[in-house]
Structure formats: structure tokens, C-alpha cells
């Protein structure tokens, strides 16, 4: 094991996959010598050169479309969209082209393509640079949506994403880049489509993903110490397709469900998890499910406002207490 940041772990996955498969390349804005707006690709240009780190104009539709064209013709592009908020300018390419082309052509093609982007609030970046739009992509058949919380998961999941024969929207979290954690020395592939139980517990199941996994783990610690409540923390890791089995097994055990996410509440990940669980394993529930999400409000700039509606450890603790009361 070595200790490294989330950023470094992502870079490690990119470096490993680029080294082992020359069909893998990176395309996006400022990803080359500059190393990316989030400094994720830093150093890769020196190693792999401009042919495999392709700087583009500010043309997100062309970036995504070009990645699709390359994927259809034998390559394995990793396209970077600087902020998930910017997918608004290239949604058509993602959802009407990439997500559907294999189906529309009845399997004549494969689309091995990763869109790396980052989302999340908490840094005072205001309404157009702080969103968590994963629910949009989960709504669309044909896309897999992966959101790691730890350096180890980020590296293992990104490697799997790059090897997938299907399009993966890989969403990083801007607040996590400097978070450190253990990453195995040897190669590790973490499967897409599987959730990970980050803490076991018998009293309540908490589903979460990305940065909120960290908050949930802190909350679980507090609840254990202060309330004697044992939370089972299910890190969804892949938010689409959901790992129903792991989620359901946990709920069957704890009989309670609390969902946490950083996206807007309406039609979010929590809504889907709750709908699946209540429609399919209703009888296991001993209490109403509850959810915590970003309020249905654009992300305000001022920190005091942003924090007031952003899920955090305290709000999770309170929410779980209320659920259990």
C-alpha cells in the first residue's frame, strides 16, 4: 500500500492504462502540458506526448463527438469535461449519440469510452460550477455512471471504466482531489456495477456516493459513539446501474434506509434508491425511508448559504436520529 491523493490515484490509473494499451488516449481542454484544470493529467504529457494527450479548443460537443468517433473505430478515448456543469453544452453527444449508438445499430458497434468529469459543491464556486448532475446520466439508458469516494476506489474503478466496452461517465469530486488514502501497489480493478459496504452496521442502511461517503462515515462514527447506533454505510460507487443486491441485502438486515447525496433532491439518486427499495422490499421496512440531498436550489456563492443546504456530517447525524426516533 502507498498513501496518495485522490488526484494522484486517478492519474495513476490513467498512466497504467495508457502504458498497457496504446489505444487509450486523453482528449480535452488544457489536458496536455498544462496538466488539466484540476491538475489530474499533470506529467502524463511528458510521458506519453501530444499524440496521446490531445488539447482541444473550448468545444465540448466536438470533444465528446470526436471521442465517440474514435471509440467506434478502434480506440479507447478518455475525454475530459472540466466541470460536470459544462455537460449542458454537449448533452446531445452524450445522451443521444454515445448512449444510444450501440442500441440503434443493434450491436454492430462497441463504444469503449470514458468521460471523466468532476462535480460537487463546497468550494464556493456558485451556481454554474458546483452541481452534481449524475441523476441526468442515470436517467439515460446506455450509460454507466461511476463516482468514487476514495483514492483506492478511484484508481480501481477508473481502470475498469477504461477497459469497459461501454460508455462510462466517471465523475470525480472537486473537494476530494487532495484527500489522501491507501492505494495498493499492485494493479487492482474494481468492478463497475458493485456497491461497497464501507462500514457494517445493524441499525440503519445509509446509501451514499462520492464525497458524501466521507461525511457519512464521520456521521456513522458519531452515531456509534454518541447514540450507540450502528450504521451500515453502502458506498454506491456505481450510481447506474445500481447494485440492487447489495443495497437490498443491507436494508433487509437493518430494516431502515437513509440516502445521502449532493445532487438536487428532485429525481435524484436517493429518489431512485428509495423507489426501488420501497417497491421491491417494502415489507422489510421498519420505519419510513428518509433522504438527504442538496435542496432544490441553485448553488449559492456565499459559503454560509452554500453550507446551509449542502449535506454534511451534522445533517446526516440529525437525519438519522430523526429516522430512528
Amino acid at each position: 500500500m502507498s498513501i496518495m491523493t485522490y488526484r494522484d490515484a486517478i492519474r495513476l490509473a490513467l498512466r497504467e492504462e495508457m502504458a498497457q494499451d496504446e489505444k487509450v488516449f486523453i482528449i480535452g481542454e488544457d489536458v496536455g502540458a498544462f496538466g488539466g484544470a484540476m491538475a489530474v493529467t499533470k506529467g502524463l504529457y511528458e510521458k506519453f506526448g501530444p499524440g496521446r494527450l490531445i488539447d482541444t479548443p473550448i468545444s465540448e460537443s466536438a470533444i465528446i463527438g470526436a471521442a465517440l468517433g474514435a471509440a467506434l473505430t478502434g480506440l479507447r478515448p478518455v475525454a475530459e469535461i472540466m466541470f460536470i456543469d459544462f455537460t449542458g453544452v454537449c448533452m446531445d453527444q452524450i445522451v443521444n449519440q454515445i448512449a444510444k449508438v450501440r442500441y440503434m445499430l443493434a450491436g454492430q458497434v462497441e463504444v469503449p469510452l470514458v468521460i471523466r468529469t468532476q462535480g460537487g459543491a463546497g468550494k464556493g464556486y456558485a451556481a454554474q460550477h458546483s452541481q452534481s448532475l449524475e441523476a441526468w446520466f442515470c436517467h439515460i439508458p446506455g450509460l454507466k455512471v461511476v463516482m468514487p469516494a476514495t483514492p483506492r476506489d478511484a484508481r480501481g474503478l477508473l481502470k475498469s471504466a477504461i477497459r469497459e466496452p461501454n460508455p462510462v461517465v466517471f465523475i470525480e469530486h472537486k473537494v476530494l482531489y487532495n484527500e489522501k488514502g491507501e492505494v495498493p501497489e499492485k494493479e487492482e480493478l474494481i468492478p463497475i456495477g458493485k456497491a461497497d459496504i464501507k462500514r457494517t452496521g445493524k441499525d440503519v442502511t445509509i446509501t451514499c456516493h462520492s464525497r458524501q461517503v466521507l461525511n457519512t462515515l464521520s456521521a456513522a462514527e458519531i452515531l456509534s459513539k454518541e447514540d450507540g447506533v450502528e450504521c451500515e454505510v453502502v458506498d454506491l460507487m456505481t450510481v447506474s446501474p445500481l447494485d440492487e443486491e447489495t443495497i437490498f441485502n443491507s436494508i433487509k438486515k437493518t430494516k431502515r434506509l437513509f440516502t445521502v447525496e449532493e445532487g438536487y433532491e428532485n429525481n435524484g439518486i436517493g429518489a431512485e434508491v428509495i423507489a426501488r427499495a420501497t417497491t421491491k422490499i417494502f415489507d422489510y421496512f421498519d420505519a419510513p425511508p428518509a433522504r438527504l440531498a442538496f435542496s432544490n436550489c441553485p448553488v449559492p456563492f456565499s459559503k454560509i448559504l452554500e453550507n446551509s443546504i449542502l449535506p454534511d456530517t451534522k445533517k446526516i447525524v440529525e437525519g438519522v436520529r430523526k429516522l430512528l426516533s
Partner: protein
Amino acid sequence: MKKMSHQEAAELYRSMLRIRRFEETCHELYLSGKIPGMSPHLYIGEEAVAASICFFLNKDDYIISTHRGHGHCLAKGARMDRMLAEIMGKETGYCKGRGGSMHIADVTTGNLGANGIVAAGLPIAVGAALSAIYRKTNQIAVCFFGDAASNQGTFHEAVNMAAVMNLPVLLVCENNHYGLSTPIKKTCPTCNISDKAHGYGIEHTTCDGMDTEVSFAAAGEAVDYVRDKKKPYLIEFITYRFLGHGASDNRSYRTREEEAQWLKKCPVKNFRKKILSDYKIDSAKIESLEKEVEEEVSAGLKFAEDSPYPKPEEVMENIFAPAAPGGGQ
């Protein structure tokens, strides 16, 4: 100017006639209720474009097509029978009835897909061209698009990217003067799509898409340029769609006189005359070629009509490719 041999002229005529007869067949099928869904967008009148361009392409060159895509698909080498089956929603179609007219493609002949979203194919073609460079092949990518598609932002981004990256992509504008009901003069300030190439600093030309010899020569030069120079090139064909945007379009936005003028320029009819006169191909040869095309149509029709519909229990197949450890491609 690139000259055609007799052999080439006959081949080109066959390619155009296949498109014309295929489209006429679709039109009848649609009117008689045998094609479900949206009225197919027919290519009648524009045959010289796809036929000329594809004439110069290798099988492994890529094309990206549009909502008006039957002509491109045929010219690049697809079979009529499986195309008709697709358009009728049958399991034997190229897309097993999942795609239909607007998403028809035979990937084995290099067609990476038609598209229901105007201009969406352009960046995909740019990516295929990038891929050719990356993989160090001699392939080029061709993207067909309409005059009105050039007003979409995606067009701009794609052409610009192709230009700055020096990618071997041939941008083929089918300027048929209308985007649905809207005449080009209401949407393009200069009425000349290739003017737009200027800002990207790429080579471009505009040619008469109703004159098959002119189209052929221009297409040949354009394809050569892209393959040799490994640079983008925009070629605009001035053409006309003889029918409505779709079958229900009564063409209220243009006059019958205007249409009559263009019908006189029918590329299929005029080129037939030409090959009889200038290329001295004897009429027996032409008639036998025409008979072959007719047979292809009727065999295709029979194949499509006899084919089964897809099975509902297989509807969820092919959303995802099965993951193979180590990657699938």
C-alpha cells in the same frame, strides 16, 4: 478536371439509379402504410452527391450520414434487401429493426451511422479521422450534412477542430436550399455554405450537384486532397430535394415553378442521356444494368416483406456490450 472512363460512367449511373429506385420504392411503401413511424427523408434529386463521393472511397473509409441517409448508405455499399428490411422494422435489417430509416447503417461498409439530430454526425466524423491518424492508417472520414445543419453549433466546433488538428475529414454539404420549410436565404447570410470555411482556414469548393460529371470531378479532387494532404476539406454540392422533407410535407414554402426548373436538372435522367451520347455506352448495356437494379429492388422487397419482425423478448439486448476482462473491442 477528373475524367470518367466508360466503365466508371456506367458504375456511377448504377449507383445513382440504385438510390433513385430505392427511394421511389420507399416512397411507395410509406404511402401504402408498409413503413411504420416517421416518413423517411428521401434523397431523390440528390443522387449525384452520394454516388460521386462514395465512388472514390475505399471500403474502409468512414462515412457519417444524416436523417436523409439512404443514399449514403447505398452508395457506400450496403445491400438493398437488408436496408428495406430495416426500414420496415424487420429483424433481418441492418439494425434488426431497432434503428429504422433515420438510424440506418451498415458498419461493415464503413458507415458509422445515420443521425436523427441535425449536425450531430460532424464531430463523430472528426473523431474517426483523428482515429485514422492515431492508428496510422490511410483512411479518411466523410461527413455528409445539409445546408441548414451548418447553422448548428456542432458544425462549427467540428470543423474548427478538424482544421486545427489537421484531420483527414471530408465535409460534404448537401445544399438543397432548404432546411425543412426554411429557405437558406433566411438562415445563412451569404447563402453559400462554403463561405463558412473561410474562418477555419480550410480549403473548400462549391459545385453543381445536379451535373454528374462536375460532381464526379469535384468529388474525386476532394477525396484525393483529404487523403493526400491529411487535412479537412469542405465541398458543397448545390442540389435540390425533389420531394418534400417527408411525405406529409406539401411544400407550401416553395413554388411549383421553382420545382419544375430543378426537375429539369434531374441528375439521373440527364446522366443517362449523357452516357448514351457522350460515353457511347450502348443502350442494351444500360438496359441490362437497369434490369439488374430492378431485380435488386424486387428481390430486396421480397426479402424484407418475408422477413420476421423482431422478438419483443429481445428488446433489451444490445444496450450494453458484454464486458470482457481486459476490454472488449
